[in-house]
């Protein structure tokens, strides 16, 4: 069984991003970049399926400019077998990302496609579901457990009320939540080995898809900042303030 894992290069989750002074976007100059944390969980899950003998090949794919090859190498170091970069300078809507991924799915015919549930930059939470719609495949989003069982996969999902388990016909699409697994660290020998694993580069323009943007970013502003308040010395003082100053308790 082939497993396809789409991954995205994003700002490192520890970095607090700043808005540019001209309000056109956020400032990503000289900011530390990394593989989107949910995508890292997706790679880990695919690699574990391979280690368990369920998956035969793990393919990582990323859409972006040349710099995303760095994250593809990370995926290879974590255990993916080969990688595909779809080259574009454009910042694509999730719909356009999903359309490109649809072509990769048609070509590679994976049985399972594991994506992150959300990019931590756009906070979109869309691509997996859109890819599922375009390919007509069932989806198990926000997964905390994935069990392949013959021609089906059981996915336990983190939902508002708790957990929900669904059974999907394969091929299927899964998007990862935080509790699915704890990704490993890439070892130095594996980082070295990853340099020799195949990484194909394709041009997004060659896919013959209309990738024109579906929205215009009019402006980006900083959020209203909260002012730090006061430190109270005693619980009595806290209760008094909440009652009489903030008036949030009675």
């Amino acid at each position, binding site marked *: 069984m082939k497993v396809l894992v789409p991954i995205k290069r994003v700002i490192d989750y520890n970095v607090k991003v700043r808005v540019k002074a001209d309000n056109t976007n956020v400032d990503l100059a000289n900011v530390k970049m990394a593989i989107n944390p949910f995508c890292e969980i997706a790679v880990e899950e695919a690699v574990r399926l391979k280690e368990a003998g369920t998956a035969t090949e793990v393919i990582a794919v990323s859409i972006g400019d040349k710099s995303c090859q760095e994250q593809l190498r990370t995926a290879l170091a974590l255990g993916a077998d080969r990688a595909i970069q779809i080259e574009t300078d454009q910042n694509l809507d999730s719909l356009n990302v999903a359309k490109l991924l649809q072509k990769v799915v048609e070509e590679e015919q994976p049985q399972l496609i594991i994506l992150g549930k959300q990019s931590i930059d756009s906070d979109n939470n869309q691509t997996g579901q859109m890819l599922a719609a375009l390919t007509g495949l069932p989806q198990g989003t926000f997964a905390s457990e994935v069990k392949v069982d013959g021609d089906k996969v059981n996915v336990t999902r983190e939902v508002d009320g708790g957990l*929900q388990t669904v059974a999907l016909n394969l091929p299927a699409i899964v998007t990862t939540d*935080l509790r699915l697994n704890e990704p490993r660290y890439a070892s130095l020998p594996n980082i070295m080995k990853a340099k020799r694993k195949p990484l194909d580069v394709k041009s997004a323009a060659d896919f013959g898809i209309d990738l024109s943007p*579906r929205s215009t970013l009019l402006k980006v502003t900083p959020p209203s900042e909260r002012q730090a308040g006061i430190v109270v010395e005693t619980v009595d003082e806290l209760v008094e303030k909440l009652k009489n100053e903030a008036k949030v308790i009675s």
Partner: protein
Amino acid sequence: MSILVFAEHDNNELKSDTLKTVAAAQAIGGDIHLLVAGSNCSAVAEQAAKVNGVSKVLVADNAAYEHQLAENVSLLVTDLAADYEHILATALTTGKNFMPRVAAMLDVAQISDIIGVESADTFVRPIYAGNAIATVQSLDSKKVITVRSTGFDAVATDGNAEVVNIDNATDAGTSRHVSDELTVSERPDLGAASVVISGGRGMQNGDNFKLLDGIADKLGAAIGASRAAVDAGFVANDMQVGQTGKIVAPDLYIAVGISGAIQHLAGMKDSKVIVAINKDAEAPIFQVADYGIVGDLFDVLPELEAKL
């Protein structure tokens, strides 16, 4: 111009977040229809008919929609889409699950998690864990939108809309509901509570979360948690507040043993009043707290409970 709003419910009760999503629809402006998709959900349809600003309630009551599987609900909504310029759902796990499918089937983008409406095609949404606020103009003819409920005030419920049954029943047949493991709680919903008290890694274990119970009882509060507390197995996943968990904005948020990572702040920093209880005076949570107590939570919590 008509707007279709997807109603959040569990086949028994309409979720109050829907009232905020209808408020977002009102801000866009137009004739608003509410879609109730479920099974044996007539009680929800009745409640939906009372939502102000709604002219018509469409009820798709069928076994295919019992668990609101994305594969089935997205087909239903896409079938109805021709009559609407805007399709809205609340940005909760159900809406997040099926709405991008609807968008892709209609060949339009989705605008996720809006917190403001500038005009019928321009919306405001947080990006980068709320560290930046984007204003985006949609170029698509149809707008598929999920609404973050903390951005809007609920509409009232003394309306009287027409209820129409639609006999659409689409089962894609590719997925099946197996089981639910839902958290049963007497407490208010995290999203709906006016007071939330959350525990973090500092709570040390699940048992210690009982220290929050007495306070929550006295304040009628919901109990939340940080990711670290959920990952460590102290409490259930549905209690996680943050960028990738639940977004809350109560009148009072009390963070106990939580450091205040940006991902946690993303889920609660729009609360009206924030209290932090942490033994580390340098913890970033104090930078957003209105009132902080630097101290050991095992001393502070029992005293707080006693003095409320």
